[in-house]
């Protein structure tokens, strides 16, 4: 991508920023420059300090050292409100909106259209609708935000920030829970804003997206600046080396052939399983040593399928079997007892217990499975925690750190560790690689393969079709809360999956199967 | 005709109060009065609500045991407008409301304190005496009055001095706890010559505290308290308590009679029907007193 040669004064200039949390030095003398009208990717491994840098810039965290200049003038925002007033709008990494407020209120909180000191509700809703329409979202903006999926919440957060951005827009992993279509829309809007001279900071672990949208790239590693490059002149492998500080081992797809997977033993099966108003009844067989991918658009019923399979939601029809024997899956406890594990997609609310340590989070499911009277001794806990911290490269490698203080990607790894520690027979992963850096991403995919080789059955949901296609032995495609298509063996590739997702009339016949 | 009378009772914060309620019921059934009791759980606002609902039900008379002396004017005016006579039981209200009620059947709590003080002065004679006082609930008018009466009575005697005074909230447990610390603070109890408690319950607790500290209540330390509940007579029998001032739980009896006379013959009773504040000591046959009070619901 060609950028203007005119240097101009930088829009946002950050010099020598340092920030420590107790003994953890999250940022050390980091410089960062954002020009007007550019889209600037901020990259790095999980825990590199990206989110921290953003929060320092917007005044959420006080900085230990360094200066921030906006349009050449030194600024020192001391709260998110001050940053907003200075013209910096931000979407933070975790969806940071209020589920109890209506969508419209979320979009216009603290800046509602007013008349005589009274909020003009109708006007606000109209504007909210218009704002969301730009993202192709047509929802009831008077309903509480919490009624909607993470994706909708994320889009709302982005829409709010975009509407607010006066000079600088910062997006911390905005695309993690969006599908292709929505990403396209977002990119369109970002380009439009950049065209108007707004500087955009974009954090993502999807390198394809980085190359598609960004003009320049700044890379952080372990809280230090590694370098700043023009995107166009930075080869992908070079970028990965900058981020990881080493070469990335290639992952190879070792998909089983169609014949092979028939031969494997069935680990769990679901016949005519479903719940009215939730997911249409489906048939699903999960075999030892096999990865089944669930593909579909947002809201197509993938999470719902996962929750039914695990027992987080009670089915009202059908029969579940484990190793051939009929079982009842009514609560998560039942699932855990039968050797199932489930990494939910909403890490913050359904996954981690923020206040507890990494160690405690890792042993939680194992302990729940063993029961009260068989506590894991402290030594056993330490061993388990140490093993997984090493295996999954959780950073910082301190098992006694409250998990809420870890970076998003590392929290995801802790969740994975929690279930691996229970030595499950079936693991259900809902968006396991969301927010995970390239290095760890490769690690997790490798891990998934290894687990399968050890006989584990896996049910994986991912919005990354490339990813699903890489590791799945079978792919089940969902649409409108029904299982509509199953692809196996050689039939699995991105084109076929996309076709199955998109096909409307063509595959309707399959629905009769469900 | 059978009378229906609404009684706004304070609550059941003490044994004495429970006895008053049960004696009122007994007296009512003796006279075939239909007595409606509303328990206010110690809250004035509940008493006002109760009176209002009695008015709404058009009862023949209202008995009120006011939790506090002020704040009754407007609700009693409503009762007056509705031509329902009101009788105060056990406690008086602020003088400004004199014309709003028919009569008040109460003891004089300042007088009670004075009776206790006079007894102590007489018993101690001329020797110096350090007194510790267990007050009732802070802010309660009875507590203030019993303190006032006692203080006035002993003020005449230079040898009597209240050295410590704390609230025991009218309860046994607090009475015991406070007495414990009084004993510690006054040289293991050696410097204390008498205890005055605003009610018997606190005194029963204090007696326990003295015994646990190795003191002999009633001998090493004199006791005087108010109410005359059965348990204080038990202590007197055991020689552990010296004196109490009686507050009769039968306030309703005279009140019923006054209302009946007023309703039937139009006799207007005196504004104040004062109950007797008898002093009872070990010399007054505590066993007999105990037996007569045992069944009254204390």
């Amino acid at each position, binding site marked *: 991508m060609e950028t203007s040669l005119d240097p101009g004064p930088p829009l946002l200039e950050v010099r020598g920023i340092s920030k420590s949390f107790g*003994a953890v030095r999250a940022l050390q003398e980091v410089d960062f420059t954002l020009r007007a009208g550019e889209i600037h990717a901020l990259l790095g491994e999980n825990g590199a300090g990206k989110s921290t840098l953003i929060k320092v810039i917007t005044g959420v965290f006080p900085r230990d050292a360094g200066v921030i200049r906006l349009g050449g003038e030194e600024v020192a925002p001391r709260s998110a409100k001050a940053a907003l007033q200075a013209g910096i709008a931000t979407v933070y990494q975790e969806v940071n909106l209020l589920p109890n407020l209506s969508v419209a209120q979320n979009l216009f909180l603290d800046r509602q259209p007013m008349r005589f000191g009274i909020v003009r509700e109708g006007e606000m809703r109209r504007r909210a609708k218009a704002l969301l329409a730009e993202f192709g979202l047509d929802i009831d903006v008077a309903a509480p935000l919490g009624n909607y999926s993470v994706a909708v919440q994320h889009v709302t957060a982005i829409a709010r920030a975009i509407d607010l951005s006066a000079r600088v827009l910062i997006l911390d992993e905005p695309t993690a829970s969006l599908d292709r279509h929505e990403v396209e829309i977002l990119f369109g809007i970002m380009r439009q804003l950049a065209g108007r001279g707004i500087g955009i900071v974009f954090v993502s672990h999807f390198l394809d997206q980085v190359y598609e949208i960004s003009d320049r790239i700044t890379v952080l590693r372990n809280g230090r600046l590694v370098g700043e490059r023009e995107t166009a002149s930075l080869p992908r492998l070079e970028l990965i080396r900058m981020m990881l500080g080493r070469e990335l081992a290639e992952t190879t797809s070792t998909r089983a052939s169609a014949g092979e997977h028939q031969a494997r033993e069935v680990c769990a099966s679901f016949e005519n399983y479903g719940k009215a108003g939730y997911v249409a009844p489906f048939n699903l067989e999960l075999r030892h040593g096999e990865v089944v991918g669930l593909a579909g658009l947002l809201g197509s019923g993938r999470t719902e399928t996962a929750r039914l399979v695990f027992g*987080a939601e009670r089915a009202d029809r059908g029969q579940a079997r484990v190793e051939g024997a009929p079982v009842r899956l009514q*609560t*998560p*406890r039942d*699932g*855990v*007892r039968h050797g199932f594990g*489930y990494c*939910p997609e909403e890490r913050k*609310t*359904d*996954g*981690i*217990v*923020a*206040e*507890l340590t990494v160690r*405690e989070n890792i042993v*939680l*499911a194992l*302990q*729940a*499975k063993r029961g*009260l*009277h*068989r*506590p894991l001794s402290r030594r056993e806990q330490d061993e388990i925690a140490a093993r997984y911290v090493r295996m999954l490269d959780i950073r910082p490698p301190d098992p006694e750190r409250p998990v809420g203080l870890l970076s998003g990607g590392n929290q995801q790894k802790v969740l994975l560790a*929690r279930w691996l520690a229970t030595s499950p027979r079936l693991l259900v992963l809902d968006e396991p690689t969301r927010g995970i850096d390239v290095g760890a991403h490769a690690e997790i995919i490798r891990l998934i393969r290894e687990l399968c080789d050890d006989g584990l059955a896996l049910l994986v949901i991912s919005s990354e079709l490339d990813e699903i296609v890489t590791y799945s032995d079978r792919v089940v495609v969902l649409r409108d809360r029904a299982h509509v298509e199953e692809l196996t063996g050689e039939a699995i590739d991105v084109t076929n999956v996309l076709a199955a997702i998109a096909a409307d009339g063509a595959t309707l016949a399959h629905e009769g199967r469900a | 005709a059978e009378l229906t009378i609404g009684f706004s009772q304070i*609550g*059941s*914060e*003490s*044994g004495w*109060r*429970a006895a008053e*309620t049960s004696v009122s019921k007994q007296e009512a059934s003796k006279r075939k009065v239909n007595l409606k009791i509303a328990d206010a759980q110690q809250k004035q606002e509940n008493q006002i609500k109760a009176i209002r609902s009695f008015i709404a039900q058009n009862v023949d008379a209202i008995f009120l045991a006011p939790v506090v002396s002020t704040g009754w004017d407007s609700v009693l005016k409503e009762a007056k407008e509705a031509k329902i006579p009101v009788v105060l039981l056990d406690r008086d209200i602020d003088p400004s409301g004199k014309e709003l009620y028919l009569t008040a059947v109460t003891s004089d709590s300042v007088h009670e304190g004075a009776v206790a003080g006079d007894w102590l002065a007489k018993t101690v004679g001329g020797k110096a005496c350090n007194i510790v006082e267990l*007050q009732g609930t*802070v802010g309660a008018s009875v507590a203030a009055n019993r303190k006032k009466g006692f203080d006035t009575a002993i003020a005449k005697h230079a040898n009597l001095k209240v050295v410590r*005074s*704390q*609230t025991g909230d009218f*309860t*046994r*447990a*607090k009475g015991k*706890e*406070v007495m*414990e*610390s009084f004993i*510690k*603070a006054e040289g293991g109890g050696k410097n204390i010559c008498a205890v005055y408690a605003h009610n018997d*319950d606190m005194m*029963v*607790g204090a007696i326990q505290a003295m015994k*646990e*500290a*190795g003191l002999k209540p009633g001998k090493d330390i004199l006791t005087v308290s108010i109410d005359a509940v059965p348990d204080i007579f038990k202590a007197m029998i055991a020689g552990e308590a010296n004196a109490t001032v009686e507050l009769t739980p039968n306030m309703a009896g005279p009140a019923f009679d006054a209302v009946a006379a007023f309703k039937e013959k139009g006799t207007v009773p005196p504004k104040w029907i004062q109950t007797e504040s008898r002093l009872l000591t070990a010399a007054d046959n505590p066993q007999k007193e105990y037996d007569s009070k045992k069944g009254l*619901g*204390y």
Partner: protein
Amino acid sequence: MTALLPRRGLAQIFALIVILAIDRAVSPQFFDLRLQDGRLFGSLIDVLNRGTPVALLSLGMVLVIATRGIDLSVGAVMAICGAIAASLADSHGLPVVLAAALGAGLVCGLWNGFLVAVLGMQPIVATLILMVAGRGIAQLITEGRIVTFSSPDLVWLGNGAILGLPVPVAIALGMLLLTGAVVRGSALGLLIEATGGNARASELAGVGTRAMILAVYVWCGVCAALAGVIAAADIMGADANNAGLWLELDAILAVVIGGTSLFGGRFSLVLAVLGALIIQTMNTGILLSGYPPEFNLLVKAVVVLAVLLLQSPKLSGLAGIATRLRGTKP
């Protein structure tokens, strides 16, 4: 042993020492101890002895609060169980009396737990119901009277001594050790903290969160029952009107002073009991000081605020000292 006595106890211990020093200043004989009828006698012993009911309550309360709950009914449960114990004391042996009283506490706890865990009511209203009705039940048992008893066994529970220590203190100590052993010796502690920290996530991890919630309310009920029996034994009578009145607030205060968040999660039994002792040290100090009782509440308010400010993470000076101390530890 960080599980039982976490590093964060410094502020509480400091507060206790300061208040003890103030007590010594207002009452010179504060630290005097002597043996009286085989029982230690002195203001310090009073602090322990009088602090026992709140300490027992806070042992149950801290677990409830750790699950993000609250139990307003403990005072009423004390009254119920004290009433039951007192009414049975003269006709039955101590084991029967205790079994009946503790059983009643357990039932009360089950009721609260049922409302919260099964019916999904908000803890504060769920327990408000028993707070209101429970005192009525207690008065129903005693018919509003103070039911006295003379059974020497039960009286011993209130006034006896073990190795010079008042029996109630020994019981509280025993309960602390028992609760500690149960909670930290099994996985209960971890699972309770997980439930309080994030109930949804814990449920999905296979933790029986309902069972946890039920269990803590039951335990809270049992602790309150024991406190009720001791309060009755102390005055040789059950005072249904006043036993445990407003003690729920003291128990909650003790738990919070002990550093447990009202939003659930991490808890500490030892610090909760320490919180109860801090409150009682202050109360005893007030009684010994000889100030008129009108000042009691003001003093209490000031002390509570001071103790809390001491713990506030925002008091950077102190936090700095704490981290430095922590940092020097190996």
